[in-house]
Structures are given as C-alpha cells and as structure tokens.
C-alpha cells in the first residue's frame, strides 16, 4: 500500500476512535506532548497504562472474590483506573469506571461484578484499537513517512 494511503487510513481510523467514543480530547493532549525529543511518548504512556490496568483488574477480581468484600479498597482501585484512563483519553474505560464506583458507593456486589466485566471488556477493546493505531504508525515510519496529526473539529 502506498504511503499516502496508509496515512489516510491512520487519519480515518483515529477519527473513528473518537466518533465511537473510545478516545476523547485528552488523547490529543498526549499526542501534542510527543515530539522529536520524545518520539515514543504516546506509546510509552499507553503501554504503562495497560501494564497498570492489568494489575488493577487483577486486584479488583481478587477483591470481589472475597467473602467480605472491602468496598473501600475496591473503590480505591477503581479510582486509580478511572484516573489513568482519563489521563490517556480512554473515554469508554473511564465511563465504565465511573459506573463501577457508583456501585461501590452503594455496596452492590452484583452491580460491581457486572461493572468489572464491563471495564475488562472496554480495556480489551481499546487495547486492540491502540495496537492497530501503533501498527499503522509503524508502517508509515517504516516507509519513511511522518505520522499525520489529527486536527480538532472534524
């Protein structure tokens, strides 16, 4: 595929992620922080997020499996995940965390279990989306091109 075509594909793909609510404007902030002196910033932060979220999701699974669920601990973990997802612009993960916290507040175990599944699902989905995004970027750079920047207001 020609460079211009891959670049076009990346732009369209990224736009679709915004349209579908996977990403929000905070992701653009992240991209703006990437430059020649920090060419892998987005990749690094997103990778950190997935490492961190995996740990948190494990903690949450364990915490909900206890005979006496510690809702305070649960909430603390979800708060962390909500914070990180918000910081990278992973909107659907963030929203799933907000719903999760509401169930923690009222100590509803069933609700929490459902939310945990939803959060896991959203993390899984957005991870795949990012993998595709990074793969397209790599293809562009391997062809000697530069990664096009997305403009706001599309």
């Amino acid at each position, binding site marked *: 595929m020609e460079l211009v075509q891959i670049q076009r594909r990346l732009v369209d793909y990224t736009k679709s992620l915004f349209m579908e609510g996977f990403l929000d404007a*905070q992701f653009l902030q992240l991209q703006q922080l990437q430059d020649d002196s920090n060419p892998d*910033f987005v990749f690094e932060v997103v990778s950190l997020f997935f490492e*961190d979220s995996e740990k948190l999701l494990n903690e949450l699974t364990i915490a909900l499996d206890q005979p006496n669920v510690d809702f305070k601990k649960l909430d603390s973990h979800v708060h962390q995940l909500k914070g990180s997802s918000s910081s990278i612009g992973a909107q659907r993960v963030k929203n799933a965390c907000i719903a999760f916290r509401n169930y923690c507040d009222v100590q509803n175990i069933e609700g929490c279990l459902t939310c945990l599944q939803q959060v896991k699902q959203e993390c899984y989905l957005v991870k795949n989306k990012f993998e595709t995004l990074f793969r397209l970027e790599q293809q562009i750079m391997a062809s000697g091109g530069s990664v096009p920047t997305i403009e706001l207001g599309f």
Partner: protein
Amino acid sequence: MAVELGDEPHVLAVDDNLIDRKLVERLLKNSSCKVTTAENALRALDYLGLGNDTLEGTVSEVNMIITDYCMPGMTGYELLKKIKESSVLKEVPVVIMSSENIPTRISQCLEEGAKMFMLKPLKQSDVKQLKWHLMKCRN
C-alpha cells in the same frame, strides 16, 4: 530562596498514579521546568527536608510544588498543611490537583494556602497558566 532570572523553575510533582506522574512531568518539562517527581507525600516531605528520613545536606530547593489531592497515607491537603507550617517552605507556591470537582474540597485547599486548584487530567493550557503564575511570583 533567591532564584536568578533565566533559571529553569524547579517543580516537585507529587502523585501516586504512575501515568499521571509521567504526564505531569512531560507537561512541565515542555514548559521548560526542571521536574522532580515523588510517588507519595512522605517521599515529598523527605525530599523537601521536612521528613523523618531526610539526610543532612540533601535538601533541594524547589520553586513550586504540585500535588494530587487523593493519595494513600497522607493526602495532598495534609501535605499542603505541613508545607505551610514550615518556616522554610511556607512561601513555596503549592498547587493541588484532583480528578474530582468538589467545591468544599477546593475552598478547603485554597483557604489552607494553596495557590491554585486544578482539575485532572491536566492539559498544556493548565501548565502554561501555572508557569505564568510561577514567573509572576518570582519577579
């Protein structure tokens, strides 16, 4: 704590969230600040020379402290109070960040002497605003 004009301001950023620490560090460095990060309030206090584990002669000068509100152990609010109680550090501007927009929390921090309260996630425009305030304080 005299700082020469033209020096890069030194900011201590405190946050228990790894991703947020990385983000705030990048944002501040992009605004030409020297950045030190701490993962909790106790480490921050040690770094500032107010901790129990501070070693002689290792106290560093900072021009601003930016801290998350919700942290395990000591909160950002408690850290703010400790800083304001210190004769050495009370003039250092402290900025509190939080992902939660709670008016009573905001006024509590401002009343205790926080320079600003910022909502997370931080953006470039927030940090530019911060830097402007910082330069204003110094001149």
